[in-house]
């Protein structure tokens, strides 16, 4: 008899890294769909291109490192990095911007450190940070919420034109994010005066709220499937809300409402999809609580006193 020898346990749950990542991908769908719905085809192009680049770059480096290709690619992690970075970029991002970002994410931040599980930072966010510092202009051209099919909507062809860098987006198409606009309202302008001037294209704030709620739906799915635990999102958003409430209570004329901070930017996206990246986050339950809370505090500090003109969607904006 030639019998199989294995160490215990001899049975395993039917989970895999690949399926975990697949659930994360699935959970991003509501957010991406809502973003696309409000901000046009550009979002979708970004996501698809970044995801494709993720797989391509990962395969390239794996081949250079002589690592098993198929097994590793099946973990879907490069795909997740691509989708997260793609969803974070402004809808008018040109192709080379995405390429630079993905090279930084997959090649530098992930594979150079040894691949999945070895990266000290979230690859997608390393790519994002690099782009933000290197290409502030491109990175701050957010779109106005013109929708997919409205009168002013940018068609797929035009979006592709922006993507390929053939067509420059006009001023009418672009707009600031609510958080960014509010932050740069100026010291002398009171919050009430600022909002009275209707500083954003119509529907902007509603669009952001809808997007935030869509990410929340995706996050709920991850929680329900136990892909992530509640500790980081709850402590992150909790700390953010506490601090926002304190600031607002101390001086309502210069600080946004807690709800504005919660839903006006990418806080929800960051709390459920970025901060929960297991590789770079804290591991123990207690550690996760501290980790999330620290991020929440940092977000509020940067939003209030940060100097850079950061925009969507570093979780700060």
């Amino acid at each position, binding site marked *: 008899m030639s019998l*199989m020898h294995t160490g215990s346990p001899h*049975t395993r749950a039917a*989970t895999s*890294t690949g399926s975990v990542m697949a659930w994360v991908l699935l959970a991003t769908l509501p957010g991406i769909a809502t973003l696309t719905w409000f901000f046009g085809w550009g979002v979708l192009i970004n996501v698809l291109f970044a995801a494709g680049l993720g797989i391509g770059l990962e395969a390239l480096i794996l081949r250079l490192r002589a690592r098993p290709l198929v097994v590793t690619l099946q973990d879907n992690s490069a795909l997740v990095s691509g989708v997260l970075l793609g969803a974070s970029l402004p809808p008018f991002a040109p192709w080379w911007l995405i390429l630079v970002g993905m090279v930084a994410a997959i090649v530098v931040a992930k594979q150079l450190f040894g691949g*999945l*599980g070895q990266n000290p930072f979230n690859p997608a966010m390393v790519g994002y940070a690099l782009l933000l510092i290197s290409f502030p202009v491109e990175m701050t051209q957010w779109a106005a919420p013109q929708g997919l099919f409205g009168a002013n909507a940018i068609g797929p062809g035009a979006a592709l034109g922006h993507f390929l860098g053939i067509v420059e987006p006009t001023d009418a198409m672009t707009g600031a994010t609510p958080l960014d606009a509010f932050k740069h309202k100026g010291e002398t302008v009171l919050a009430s005066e600022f909002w009275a001037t209707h500083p954003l294209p119509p529907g902007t704030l509603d669009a952001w709220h809808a997007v935030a709620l869509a990410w929340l739906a995706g996050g709920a799915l991850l929680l329900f499937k136990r892909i992530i635990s509640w500790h980081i999102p709850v402590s992150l958003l909790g700390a953010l809300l506490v601090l926002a409430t304190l600031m607002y209570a101390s001086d309502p004329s210069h600080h946004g409402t807690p709800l504005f901070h919660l839903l006006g930017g990418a806080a929800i996206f960051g709390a459920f999809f970025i901060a929960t990246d297991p590789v770079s986050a804290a591991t123990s339950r207690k550690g996760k609580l501290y980790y999330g809370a620290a991020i929440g505090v940092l977000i509020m500090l940067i939003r209030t006193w940060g100097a850079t003109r950061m925009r969507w969607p570093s979780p700060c904006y």
Partner: protein
Amino acid sequence: MADFDFPGGIHPPERKTLSNRVPLVQAPLPGRVILPLTQHLGMPAEPVVTLGQRVRTGEVIGRAQGMISANLHASITGTVSAIEEHPVPHPSATLGEVRALCIVIDADSTHKLVQKDEGSGELRQKDEGLGESRQKDEGFGELKQKDDWLRLPPLDWRASDDETLIERLRESGIVGLGGAGFPTSVKAQVRQRHAIDTLIVNVAECEPYITADDMTLRHYTSDILEGTQLFARLTGAERILIGIEDNKPEAIEVLNQALRKPIADDIAVELKVVATRYPSGGEKQLVQLLTGREVPSRGLPTDVGVLCHNPGTLLAALRAVRDGEPLISRIVTLTGEALDRPGNVEARIGTPMQELLAFAGLKPERLSQLIQGGPMMGFTLDTGSLPLIKTSNCLIAATAEELPPAPPEQPCIRCGACETACPASLLPQQLYWFAKGREHDKAELFNLFDCIECGACAYVCPSHIPLVQYYRASKSDIRAREQEARKAEHARHRFEFRQARIVREEAEKQARREARKKRPQDSSAQAANTTESDSSTARSEPAPTTADLTAQLRKLKIAQAAARAAVKKAEKNLARISEARQSDKTELEDMEIQLATARENLQATEARLTMLQAQSQDQETNPS
């Protein structure tokens, strides 16, 4: 439901219906048994039979050596045909064959096993009664093989004292049948060191596939309940809890019925049904579930006043006491999809596993993996020619589809699923990194040795990392290192023992000399009192004065008390060490030798003391 909870846990597919749908049956008597001399924790037994010797079923063939050991009995009637090394089932067998000294007995060859119907021979439940009813059970079917029993006289445990009962357990080779095979007689003496208030019968049987405890309980309900009373008596427990998972409704029903008519004077037995969740049957987990008491790190349930027993052990203990039957058989689950007729059988210890598997309808072409124990904590075996041993509670003959090989190991993504599943509140991921980086100090600091190797972490790991293997490797590295240190210590202790022995022998020799010297002196005392005493004082150097003697006597008495305390301490240490399941042989040996040293010292002091006392008496009676 249980009143308390333990952290973590998982819900693997239970797969118990494979084997718990058919009644417990008697396995056919094997024509040959292979009986390893180590089937328990501690020292191996010493063979006390010779080649070619005829033995009867139940006859002692191996004697326990040292404090932690167990007797071994012939499990069939026949002739000792070999005493040799043979492969045995062992957790390390995954890494390669493990061999141990075994006694092989061949049944008398004239009576070959004849069996008309394999499925027959359903075991009748024994209500009460002694050996005869059991003999009837064995006479089932068309068995022609001779089964000539040698039993000890039956005991009425209610009327016997503790020493008699414990001696009976020791004599009968009873060991824990649930897991590690710890000698039951040692466990029964627990009250000497710990106050026990609760006895827990562990019928949780949380491992998938295994149904042996379930079936044992269903078929021997009253015996097991009586066994609990016996052990409550021995341990002084005031409370008896039976912990059982809610996936055994039949056993729960049978128990409830039995408990409805309690026997007068018996301690009330509480049935505690717990939710099915692996590993609720882990000793520490069950204690926590049923009593809310947490067993301290690196401790045992006895530290919190609880003693756990497996129902099979209780049954074996009761049979040893009530029927005078030693441990020569056990109930084992034969299961897995490579078997046509899975179920539970009562089989003789030493039966080659392949005979049992054949009895259960093994399809060899479907077999991909043979596992002793459950799929979570069991270990794979090389071949079916290994013997069934006292701790073999389950054999899984699995097909490749049933228990497929683990997918390739992928990098840890630090998802923390292992931490959520860990029933011991450890940080499995942290331990994994430490084990991988061979940072053993850190691993110990993170309580690696509190890991019960239940496998819940590896079960949930999405990266298919064989975590338990990493922990085992780390543990054995640490143990090896500790053992190196202990070896040196051990050498020192051996030397000390030798010194002590020499001193003792010297003291005894001197005492004998003195005694010899005194005798002729006593007889001639009246005749030549003065001259004799003169010459004696001249011979034994400066004559000790009375004051000198008293002072020396006092000194020796103090030394004797100290030596006595040292013996007590060494005994206690040995008991403690032998109780801790993880201690190995060297450690035990070392403790035994320390104890022996202390005893030598005590003997030497006592010899000197008696000598001196005689001298001082001498001086009092005939002052020179």
